[in-house]
């Protein structure tokens, strides 16, 4: 047993192999300083099991493609240090929850992005290229609400962390609704009413239980629960005729 402070020299890593049917395979991986979980998976693929399927691109926390379940929690693996999550030298790596599995650690993100579209999580321009630039006041409260949610990297960690997503197939989930919240607050969007309507239909913001698992797990510190509460509030105001123009 390694004592506290001296990390294990070898990590014992269990990795999910297969699709819905499958098994955990155990690998011994050399422990290095500042090693990330993605480094561990890459080591296995390069040195022990070339057929291991997983996904990554940037390795620096920008692209959002490397999320997996690590010791039971959804995480961005390229920015998750082994020393933070596996103090005892054990790692169990599985695919993300709430998404169809493809193979090993790779899941199909199509349903996640389809729900972005169902929430109208896309910008509708209000100007053409011939108009001047829109003036945006960075201190306006609505703009501050946009800024708080805009840095989402589409990693689906929150989507995997949300129990309501796993119970209700129709639920759009925290990331899509967070995107909708940034749009209904964006003065430049030409169809904010439409976004609010899309985000407050069945399966929309009113389905959220506000239990905050998404906030707890979002790696970039976004608070989708707050945005969803904002959508609920805004949809009630719209009922009273005081919604977005």
């Amino acid at each position, binding site marked *: 047993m390694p004592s506290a402070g001296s990390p294990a020299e070898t990590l014992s890593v269990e990795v999910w192999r297969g699709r819905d049917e499958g098994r955990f395979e155990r690998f011994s991986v050399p422990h290095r300083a500042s090693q990330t979980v993605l480094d561990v998976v890459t080591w296995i693929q390069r040195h022990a099991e070339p057929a291991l399927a997983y996904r990554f691109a940037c390795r620096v926390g920008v692209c959002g493609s490397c999320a997996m379940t690590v010791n039971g929690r959804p995480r961005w693996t390229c920015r998750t240090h082994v020393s933070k999550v596996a103090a005892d030298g054990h790692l169990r790596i599985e695919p993300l929850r709430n998404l169809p599995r493809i193979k090993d650690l790779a899941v199909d993100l199509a349903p996640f992005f389809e729900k972005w579209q169902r929430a109208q999580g896309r910008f509708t321009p209000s100007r053409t290229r011939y108009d001047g630039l829109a003036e945006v006041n960075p201190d306006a409260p609505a703009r501050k609400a946009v800024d708080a949610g805009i840095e989402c990297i589409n990693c689906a960690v929150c989507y995997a962390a949300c129990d*309501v997503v796993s*119970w*209700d197939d*129709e639920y759009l989930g925290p990331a899509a609704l967070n995107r909708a919240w940034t749009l209904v607050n964006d003065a430049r969007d030409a169809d904010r009413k439409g976004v609010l309507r899309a985000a*407050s*239909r*069945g399966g*929309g913001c*009113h*389905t959220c239980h506000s239990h905050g698992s998404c906030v707890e797990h979002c790696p970039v510190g976004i608070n989708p629960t707050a945005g969803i509460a904002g959508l*609920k509030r805004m*949809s*009630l105001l*719209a*009922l009273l005729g005081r919604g977005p123009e």
Partner: protein
Amino acid sequence: MEPAVFALQRLTALILAPLVIVHLAVILLAVEGGLSAAEILERTRGSVGWAAFYGLFVVAAALHAPIGLRAVIREHTAWGGRSLDIAMALVAVMLLGLGFRAVIAVVCNP
């Protein structure tokens, strides 16, 4: 429809919270005070106040319960959509019927 259903759920919760507390307090007081069923009915029969109190209670509960039940069923079973909405509307009607039957029994003179 969802925003209206959500609003109704919150509004009826707001109404029900104090009503439930008063209802429980009155029951405790009446029972502790040793009132018999006949003595309780004597006080409630013909009372416009109790009729309004329990009438509002029944309406709020009949709206609140099926909305909550609808969410629970949607999340924990495969049932959803229009047929569930209709079933829950029927539950609301049933609660209204049963509730008003009880209110009438308590406040109307036979």
